[in-house]
């Protein structure tokens, strides 16, 4: 496992995002109300730059003519064909079980905590994708990617096997 710096916590205020090249991948890190989420910046449809899309709310309906609007800003809409992905889980809205974007778990730890492990109470999703524990060290957001060996602390360049 190698950890890659994405940026300082202050760089990504709530409602904002940062797209960074880490470990040979383009990854988008989103701040939803103080919680961080990371998604691979590549739509599973036609490989569009997913994380550049608009963050919108979810429109649901139980009956024609009725609308429910919730989770504003938590749905990522691919800039190309508009597929909707739940930023928290990486799952597509229309087919959560089988169509999803690679997700990287991020969670914030106080600077003094040992890096690694998960926050208690975090519920794993039903999907197969691996989680990538991230630590914040001195107010930094980091993404951890298994199977990669990092060359330097800040370059984010991958010198190990790339993830399939």
């Amino acid at each position, binding site marked *: 496992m190698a950890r890659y710096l994405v940026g300082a916590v202050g760089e990504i205020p709530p409602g904002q995002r940062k797209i960074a090249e880490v470990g040979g991948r383009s990854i988008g890190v989103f701040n939803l109300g103080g919680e961080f989420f990371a998604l691979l910046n590549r739509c599973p449809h036609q490989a569009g730059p997913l994380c550049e899309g608009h963050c919108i709310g979810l429109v649901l309906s139980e009956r*024609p003519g009725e609308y429910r609007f919730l989770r504003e800003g938590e749905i990522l809409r691919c800039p190309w064909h*508009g597929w909707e992905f739940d930023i928290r889980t990486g799952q597509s809205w229309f*087919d959560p079980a089988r169509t999803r974007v690679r997700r990287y778990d991020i969670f914030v730890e106080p600077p003094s905590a040992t890096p690694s492990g998960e926050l208690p109470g975090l519920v794993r999703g039903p999907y197969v994708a691996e989680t990538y524990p991230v630590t914040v060290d001195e107010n930094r957001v980091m993404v951890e990617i298994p199977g990669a060996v990092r060359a330097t602390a800040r370059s984010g360049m991958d010198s190990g096997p790339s993830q399939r």
Partner: protein
Amino acid sequence: MTAEAADDAPGATSPIDCDVHIALPSTKTLFPYLAGHWQQYIQTSAFKGVGDTSYPRGVPTSARPDSYPPGGGPPGSSLELVRQQTLEAWGARLAVLNCDYGVQAIHNPDLAAGIAGAVNDWIIAEWLEREPRFRASLVVPRQVESAVREIERVGSHAGFVQVFLPVLSEQPYGQRGFWPLYEAALRHDLAISIQPGASAGHPPLPTGWPSYYIEEYAGIAQVFQTQVVSLVAEGVFDRFPELRVLLVEAGFTWLPSLMWRFDKDWKSLRREIPWVRRPPSEYIREHLRFTILPWDAPPQPGWLLEILEQLGSEELLLFATDYPHRHFDKPEQALPAALPAALRPKILHENARAFYRL
């Protein structure tokens, strides 16, 4: 009645003919079923019946040459001849009669209601009560409130199995203005049947009036596609999960390409129709059925098998002769030879039994 139990019943594996066209000998035939002032109106005005150009009289697609009754009258107007050339020719257990008299083209709402009622009463008296193996579509005026009243009036007759809606409507059938009609149909356990018939008045192609009949004949498939998309997009099958819709004479080889396109667009544009919570193709497979004629057969039989596979369901197709329209010359040509054996009973009767809940 389960399919297995039904197989033991007499005639259970006989074909069910889901599209037979009957015709009024003349407008006067309706007089016994019409109020006096309408009879006078018809006799003294230029109204000679609706008539439409869906089926130009002389063309083989409109009528096979031997379907003209020897005693006179248009093809489909003699019960004896229809019975002989459909039920008996096929050993059919049931035939569903469609009378495309074009009532939906009538603008005068009271005349429309009167004529629709008269046609339905005529169908009951002179077809359904005289031959127990016939079932029929009931016709309705284009005005939805009036259509609901007519469904309430005759919809409980055991011989009516569906409501006839002509495909060239004024507005797409998914729209909410039609929903009281679907409610009424469901109250009487009736399916909906969308067919060529009267026109509400729009050009039959989305791009204007074509010069030739062949264009309308081929192009009617696009109007059916519009209706399929509307029914799903408007959430009709969400609102009415019990609704069954049969597309008659629409063709079906275009259906896979439509499902692919519609499913793909739904993934992108779902937010606009958020009540459609599953891919459109799922609603289509659950709620829509198609009569098999015209086959629109490809030049290679293998391609037809591919289309059948691409439909993604063996339950979609229902046998129909489309009598008296001429699609084939011999009964053995009615189903392609390449059709897989397992599919034949489904098409010939099982799918219709399930659809009509026989």
